């Protein structure tokens, strides 16, 4: 694999890991490394080393890479994880189950078993599935109840934490206005709601945002525009997000029985 392909993958991964790291939710407290490399559009050993210390994201890349015979920073690998692509279909459920039990800190083993028993291959190592299944299932016995008055907060948290996508409707100096479909819950089931606009931050010094224009589709993570997406990527993120929602709704249905 060329180093260009690797750099593309590292940068793509860094763009999507940037905001949760900045907020202190994951990875080492070294955001300046990410910013420097993103603004310089260059990979590097210090960036790779830093990204490898993310407690969940990097193990997911390794899982997808191991199964598909690729390098974790091969562009298709982080793209599969954050956006979704055909590599997700190649990770078999037992490997993903074992990974979830043994390589992911903080997972309750019994809950992991329940999830895989209910979903089998419908559980995919896609970031959105990881996020929604964590919030929506009780890895926590007395935890969130999507039927009570906590529901709106939990759905809002899921919506920020998943990688969503939207179309740019206004370009400002530090903010973009985007139209996107939020995650909503109705009658105990998740779905994507009617499009609405919201303001997200972005960095115009990070390529290709210096030339971002109205109508561009962008990926969004914690209200930060991570990258401009290709039509193929838009199709994939829509496809895998909807599949993830279906899977999580199956889990929610099982919980009711």
């Amino acid at each position: 694999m060329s180093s260009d392909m690797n750099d593309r993958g590292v940068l793509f991964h860094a763009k999507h890991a940037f905001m949760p790291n900045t907020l202190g939710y994951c990875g080492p407290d070294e955001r300046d490394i990410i910013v420097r490399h993103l603004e310089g559009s260059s990979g590097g050993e210090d960036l790779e080393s830093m990204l490898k210390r993310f407690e969940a994201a990097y193990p997911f890349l390794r899982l997808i890479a191991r199964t598909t015979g690729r390098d974790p920073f091969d562009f298709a690998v982080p793209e599969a994880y954050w956006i979704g692509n055909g590599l997700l279909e190649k990770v078999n459920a037992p490997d993903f189950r074992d990974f979830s039990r043994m390589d992911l800190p903080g997972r309750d083993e019994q809950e992991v078993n329940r999830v895989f028993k209910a979903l089998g291959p419908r559980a995919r190592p896609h970031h959105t599935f990881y996020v929604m299944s964590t919030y929506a299932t009780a890895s926590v016995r007395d935890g969130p109840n999507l039927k009570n008055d906590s529901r709106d907060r939990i759905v809002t948290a899921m919506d920020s934490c998943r990688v969503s996508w939207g179309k740019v409707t206004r370009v400002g100096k530090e903010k973009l206005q985007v139209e996107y479909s939020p995650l909503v819950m109705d009658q105990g089931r998740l779905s994507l709601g009617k499009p609405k606009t919201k303001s997200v931050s972005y960095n115009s010094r990070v390529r290709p945002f210096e030339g971002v224009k109205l109508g561009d589709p962008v990926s969004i993570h914690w209200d930060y525009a991570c990258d401009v997406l290709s039509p193929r990527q838009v199709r994939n993120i829509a496809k895998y997000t909807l599949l993830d929602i279906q899977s999580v709704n199956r889990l929610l249905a099982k919980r009711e029985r």
Partner: protein
Amino acid sequence: MCITRVGRVEAVSGGRARVAFFDGRALDGVDVSVVSPRKGAYVEVFGNLALSILGPAEAKQRREAWETIKKASVPDPFAR
């Protein structure tokens, strides 16, 4: 990207808390409104939302599990 982390509530104010995690880091402004813990309680946090309150025994168990995974972390076959 987020990870489920367990930590102890150091201060609570208006539905937000400062939580000190087992990995040595701390986070201000954790939304604890879903579970309403008291100062000193152990909570499980994903992103910036506390999802549950854990008893001391379960928190200890989670801490040990965390440390086991960190210590035994699978060798990186891609390390250069």
